[in-house]
């Protein structure tokens, strides 16, 4: 395995981590807003707050880690994507900033208001939509060189069915992932009303999530036939992913083993995400940039991997501690302890 492949694999895993934790976060905000609208806020608010409070900051770090890492391993990404993404990434940043600080203001500062809860829920859906634009752009066809500068063709981007398929996929996936996780969390917290409501959401969003994922394949066939062909080569990854999906929906339907259902879901998304990434290889931005012509110097690559391993040695035990204290501690989960500063 070459350094380039190690580098991109590390980043892919972190991107996957971000997608999972951020989906839970964004989806939770949306469900919270939706239940406020329908007058059921009291059912969900506690469970959601209890989970999010200690971890909201960690979610953000996954994203920072990914973009710092990709520029570190593949410096040319900065000059290609940096120029092109100025507007969409800035918008995502502004939404993330408002959302993150608003969360802290409300949770710790007691700033409340129904209107803000709704805005908060909506912003959570706009962020994945604005970030998923990157995936569309990476397929090629929207960036051109004019007078030596890279220019993004917004008209083509916003009229492409591929763009909208990916946006819809990101939305349905966010809601599905979040609902499944929170169903499990609510059961652990012995909050049966929240559990029942969230289970309904999970079942509701399972269908759209899998349908839009399949829709992407169709869109890619027209947009980037090479990518589509390589996806077919690893069809078994997607088939396996579908199997896991079926099993986890079954468990939720039968109200059994929500923990396992969530793990199956994580596996489902990991396989699909891995298959998508594998078939995109070796391009970072089709057809301009591959992981080989943008990789950093060998010494830096090795230094980054060493730093990464050292960092993981610190992170994994710390994350384990965090999970043990807040995800798997029955007293905390059931709200018997509120040891907030």
């Amino acid at each position, binding site marked *: 395995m070459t350094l380039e492949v190690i580098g991109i694999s590390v980043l892919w895993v972190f991107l996957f981590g971000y997608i999972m934790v951020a989906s839970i976060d964004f989806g939770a905000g949306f469900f919270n807003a939706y239940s406020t609208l329908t007058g059921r806020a009291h059912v969900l608010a506690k469970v959601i707050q209890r989970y999010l*409070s*200690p971890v*909201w*900051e*960690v979610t*953000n*770090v996954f994203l*920072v*880690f990914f*973009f*710092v*890492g990709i*520029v*570190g*391993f593949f*410096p040319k990404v*900065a*000059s*290609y994507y*940096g*120029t092109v*993404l*100025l*507007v969409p*990434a*800035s918008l995502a*940043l*502004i939404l*993330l*900033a408002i959302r*993150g*600080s*608003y*969360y*802290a*203001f409300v949770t710790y*500062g*007691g*700033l409340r208001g129904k209107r803000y809860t709704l805005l908060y829920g909506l912003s959570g859906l706009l962020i994945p939509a604005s970030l998923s634009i990157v995936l569309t752009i990476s397929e090629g066809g929207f960036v051109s060189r004019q007078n030596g*500068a*890279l220019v993004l063709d917004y008209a083509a981007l916003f009229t492409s069915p591929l763009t909208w398929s990916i946006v819809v996929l990101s939305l349905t996936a966010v809601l599905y992932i979040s609902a499944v996780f929170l169903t499990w969390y609510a059961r652990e917290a012995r909050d049966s009303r929240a559990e029942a409501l969230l289970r309904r959401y999970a079942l509701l969003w399972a269908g759209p999530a899998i349908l839009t994922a399949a829709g992407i394949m169709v869109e890619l066939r027209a947009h980037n036939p090479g990518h589509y062909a390589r996806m077919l080569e690893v069809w078994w990854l997607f088939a396996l992913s579908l199997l896991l999906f079926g099993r986890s929906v079954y468990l939720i339907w039968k109200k059994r083993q929500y923990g396992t259902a969530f793990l199956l879901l994580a596996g489902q998304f990991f396989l699909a995400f891995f298959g998508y990434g594998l078939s995109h290889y070796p391009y970072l931005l089709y057809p301009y940039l591959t992981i080989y012509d943008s990789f*950093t110097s060998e*010494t*830096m690559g090795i*230094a*980054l991997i060493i*730093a990464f391993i*050292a*960092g993981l040695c*610190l*992170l994994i035990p*710390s*994350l384990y501690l965090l999970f043990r*204290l*807040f995800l798997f501690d029955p007293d*905390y989960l059931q709200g018997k*302890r509120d*040891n*907030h*500063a």
Partner: protein
Amino acid sequence: MGAESSVWFSRLLTELTLSFHIIYATIGVGVPLMIMLAQWVGIRNGDEHYILLARRWTRGFVITVAVGVVTGTAIGLQLSLLWPNFMELAGNVIALPLFMETFAFFFEAIFLGIYMYTWDRFKNPKKHLLLLVPVAIGASFSAIFITIVNAFMNAPQGFDVVDGQLVNVNPLVAMFNPAMPTKVAHVLATAYMTSAFVLAAIAAYRLLKGSHHVYHKKALLLTMKLGLIFSIASAIIGDFSGKYLAQYQPEKLAAAEWHFETEKNASLIMYGVLADGEVKYEIRIPYALSILAHNNPKAEVIGLDQFAKEDIPPLYIHYLFDIMVTIGVGLLFLSLLFVIGTWRGWRFVAAGWFRRLIVLGGPLAIFAIEAGWWMAEVGRQPWILRGIMRTEDAATTSTHVDTMLLLFAALYLILAIGSITVLTRMFRHNPVERELADRGGEHR
């Protein structure tokens, strides 16, 4: 909007983001240390007041951390969005500390979450105190790593340029560049110093507003002592920074000191106004610049005459230098007077006018941080990588930077109003007297 205005707006947006971010970042680096010390003193002396102090600081701290995190995310991504060519070139050499910064940040984020939600959860309060160690270390280390990146921009090394390509990259040599020791030390010391004076200002404000609770007096004495220690450290390191500049970045020192001609026995110019190339109303301290630069009153100091016109930074950085040094020295003496005065029982340290000065000290310390960063950054112009890449060659070619500038300006305004509102509400609605009474009823 052409490429030239892209450079201009990119500079403006970066300056705006950083100027806003460092207010929260500085507090984010310094306050965990203060919380840790207060909680430690409280546990050691069995004094409930200090523990409550740590607890209340923590609550306020979370709000500043939230704004620090989101603006930090913004600047992290803006580096690539606004300066793509710089990141492509520098990324090859300086990615390691950037990467390590995110680990420090990760570490801090995890333990801050745990610390926040485990008050009174452990039987042994020392265990809870220990959770703060990784928070404080993580906060300081992210400052260290990110300052290393900035130091590299001032003194790039650890690579060779052959035909416009970077070769023979050595990440460690790049990290341990000559600017790094003084920069890192100065950033840390001034962050601790600023946080101490900001917290002291809060205590003094409560005392001024008529609360005579011993809690505020303890808070004030503790923070003023820490402020004194760290302002002395900052001043000493500041002197080292002057010597670093004389040796490695003489054009920055010469511009900041309005030192036009290379000469021996150089005198230091304080204050003054520059009009049509003439310095007016200044205070000249003979030999002081030679001492600052080389520890020798007779040493020769390189002046601006040694540099090509296009390589000289803007001369207004002299005013920034004056602001930074004046505030720093002023706060040093203020805290010295307070600590000696309290110790000797001088009455004026409890007088209203003296407490008003301490209240003023908080915002002034933050203003000094801003002035110091503006001086350091503008003093590096016209380079983004000193001697290697000019700022105008690094910026994006996108034509939407002006719109983004407006959007981000609006964002920072909202964040500023939001954080100030929330912080004042938090403490106004829950004064320490009430909280002490509540907790007293709860615990014993």
